[in-house]
């Protein structure tokens, strides 16, 4: 008897062979999951649309209230009655997490657009609504992203009194928390805040360097602290960041430290030091760099030659000639370029001395450009 006739003669599921039972139970489960997902997708899409509209409305409402609050400020340095009314209006709605998120977002948006007394006014609102207390509590949280949110809020609203509590997190295992902590110190304390580098053992990524330098750029009062100690830091990433500071803020009194750094163990530090010395047009660096040239990496050698592009004199001719036949294309180009400037005759003679096609191509290019 085949299975179809079996179905027609007996409709009882219990009589089916076990394998058929299993496969149909599985199909039924899949069907139910599918049904659930379809309904969930429908509900989810609807909720997302509604939430988007509600959030927009809420954002608009909060923005209006915040602006009214700011304009109600009498400049006496304390919260007045009109402002208290607005605070009482906002406070109950902030029990809801989503509302709180939107409110903080609106406040942050405003913080990015205002300055002077208005900043203090917004700060006071942040404190009066109990948000400071909440942000502070977040610093003790077990979850890293809650800590990061806490520091971010304290940073945006420039809360100074939590300095020590934030400092605890500068070496946090999560990079996102560390980033927020670095930015807190810069945005709240300006250049003075850079002293967190003294206690930093974690590595600052290039991405964080960009963030830190970006935050520093926005600070008007540029009272740069003494950076020499960070050029001698045991944390290589601190040295690298400081080298960027030295270059961007033209800290010329660091030449001695920079010259020491060309002997550093870390190749990135050496490379950056050479680039900064080159930027400073530091003639004292030429002799020591020429001496250690052969022990340097390819990138460092190119950086040294780039430095010599403008600094080399006839006295450097022998050194330059020793690099003209380098197998590294960029070194060869740089050396020939320098030779063209310091001894044009010898540069032209290179055409006869070396018939290699790449060599001739470079000379031909340099002759025209």
């Amino acid at each position, binding site marked *: 008897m085949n299975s179809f006739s079996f179905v027609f003669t007996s409709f009882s599921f219990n009589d089916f062979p076990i394998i*058929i039972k299993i496969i149909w139970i*599985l199909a039924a489960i899949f069907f139910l999951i599918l049904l659930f997902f*379809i309904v969930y997708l429908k509900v989810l899409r609807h909720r997302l*649309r509604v939430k988007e509209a509600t959030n927009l409305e809420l954002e608009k409402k909060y923005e209006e209230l915040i602006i009214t609050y700011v304009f109600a400020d009498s400049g006496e340095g304390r919260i007045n009655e009109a402002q208290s009314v607005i605070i009482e209006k906002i406070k109950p709605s902030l029990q809801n997490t989503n509302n709180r998120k939107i409110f903080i977002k609106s406040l942050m948006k405003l913080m990015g657009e205002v300055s002077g007394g208005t900043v203090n006014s917004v700060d006071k609102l942040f404190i009066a609504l109990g948000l400071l207390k909440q942000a502070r509590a977040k610093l003790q949280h077990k979850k890293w992203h809650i800590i990061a949110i806490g520091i971010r809020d304290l940073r945006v609203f420039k809360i100074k009194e939590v300095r020590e509590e934030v400092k605890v997190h500068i070496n946090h295992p999560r990079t996102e928390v560390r980033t*927020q902590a670095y930015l807190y110190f810069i945005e709240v304390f300006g250049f003075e805040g850079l002293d967190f580098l003294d206690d930093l053992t974690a590595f600052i990524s290039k991405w964080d360097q960009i963030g830190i330098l970006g935050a520093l750029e926005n600070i008007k009062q540029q009272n740069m602290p003494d950076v020499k100690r960070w050029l001698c830091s045991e944390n290589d990433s601190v040295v690298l960041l400081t080298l960027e500071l030295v270059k961007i803020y033209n800290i010329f009194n660091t030449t001695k430290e920079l010259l020491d750094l060309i002997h550093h163990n870390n190749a990135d530090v050496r490379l950056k030091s050479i680039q900064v010395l080159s930027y400073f047009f530091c003639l004292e660096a030429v002799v020591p760099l020429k001496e250690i040239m052969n022990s340097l990496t390819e990138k460092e050698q190119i950086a040294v030659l780039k430095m010599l592009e403008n600094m080399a004199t006839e006295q450097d001719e022998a050194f330059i000639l020793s690099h003209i036949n380098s197998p590294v*294309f960029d070194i060869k180009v740089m050396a020939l370029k320098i030779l063209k400037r310091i001894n044009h005759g010898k540069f032209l003679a290179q055409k006869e001395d070396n018939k290699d096609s790449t060599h001739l191509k470079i000379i031909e290019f340099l002759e025209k450009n």
Partner: protein
Amino acid sequence: MDISVVLNYIIQVFHYLFFAYGFIVLTSCIFLAILSTIETKSYLRKNSFVNYKDVLSSKIAPSISIIAPAYNESLNIVENVRSLLSTHYVNYEVIIVNDGSKDDSLEKLIKNYDLEKVDYLINQKLKTKPIRAGVFKSKNPAFEKLVVVDKENGGKADALNVGLNVSKNDYVACIDVDCLLLEDSLQKMIKPFLEYTDKRVVASGGVIRIANSCKIENGKLLDVNFPKNKLVQFQILEYLRSFLLGRMAWSRLDGLLVISGAFGMFDKEIAIEVGGYDTATVGEDMEIVVRMRRYLEEQNIKYKVAYIPDPLCWTEAPDSYKILTSQRNRWTRGTIETLKLHKKIGFNPRYRILGMLSYPYWLIFERLAPIIEVMGMLFFILLISTRDLQWLYVLGFFTAAYLSSVIYTLISLLIEETTYHQYKKKGVGLQFVIAAFLEPLILHPVILYAAIKGNIDYYFNKNIKWGVMTRKGLSG
């Protein structure tokens, strides 16, 4: 021994093999779905703190070269280049490599971007076809970021290698010239290269989204629409599944083997060290990633291939079965070539995740999947002809398999909705569900056919290379 006993024994073995294969496929799908959900959540949480604006104005932000090969793209080349030039990143250049186009692409570029031939010293680190008309730059300062290289035809890989030679920056973004990049795509793609301190990020791949029916003006995506064409709808689901579930999960496992050729960023030093793109394969995008990973494993260098799930790059999907089968045929051949070329890493513990997980998965569930599926069909026909089948079991089996594939698609849709929610318009949800039910019945057989044809072409028709990919253009 009786022949029928032997046959019966063979059938039993095959039966269990197919069952095991199906079971592992289902389990791996569940596993990948869980992993991708975790990874997506983690990515979004991490990135909720990121300020991408700093990198735009930073003096120390690295320079990036966008390399876009173009072959007979005259129809849209001017608009496409304008789109590439309108990204928000500051330190970048756009290198258009005109790969021996027979149309007037170069003339159009010269005319529209005020180009002039310049002396350009190229370090020929990678061997390529020679330069044809030369290197061009614009006289207009507004287009100072544009470099156009005209070379003899050598294929996409060769054109990309020319771009690698011409680029003077440390990072290169290799893209299809007809792709539409969102304005913040470069800063998002460069981030992984700058944020890891304990390993070297050598490549980052982005999600590719389908732009058919979307509203695009002046190279900018203005409105996302769900297309009416069923074939394109199916491909949208397929891409969501692949990028939001598959690749996200592989990224979590640190086992990504592919970065889409439509948009990927590379550490140029490593890309050149491994010899650049392979001109002998049609799957050059997958091949270079596998070769880079293999090289880094062999050198014992700590590395990462990063993946960005944000919808950064939008492209035009084939809207005809003919072009689609040609595209998938090429993808199949590319996969076969890459896996064959790097067979040494397969099941080799020396290559860790790459050798013991990524390669075997690709071999068994990507490379061999269409073959196993066809074998399964033949086996089924054999069973019908030789056995008295339990049709109720057969029906139940196909129902369960079909429903599980729809569930998998719905999971990717749910992830899309809870994360990027790109298709916001009312009614799209229902269209999604209908497409999810139809896709296994309509698109899958086409893909299977293309994959089998790809296998046949690979073994018996070696002369086939890229095939024609006719595009209509994204700008409406």
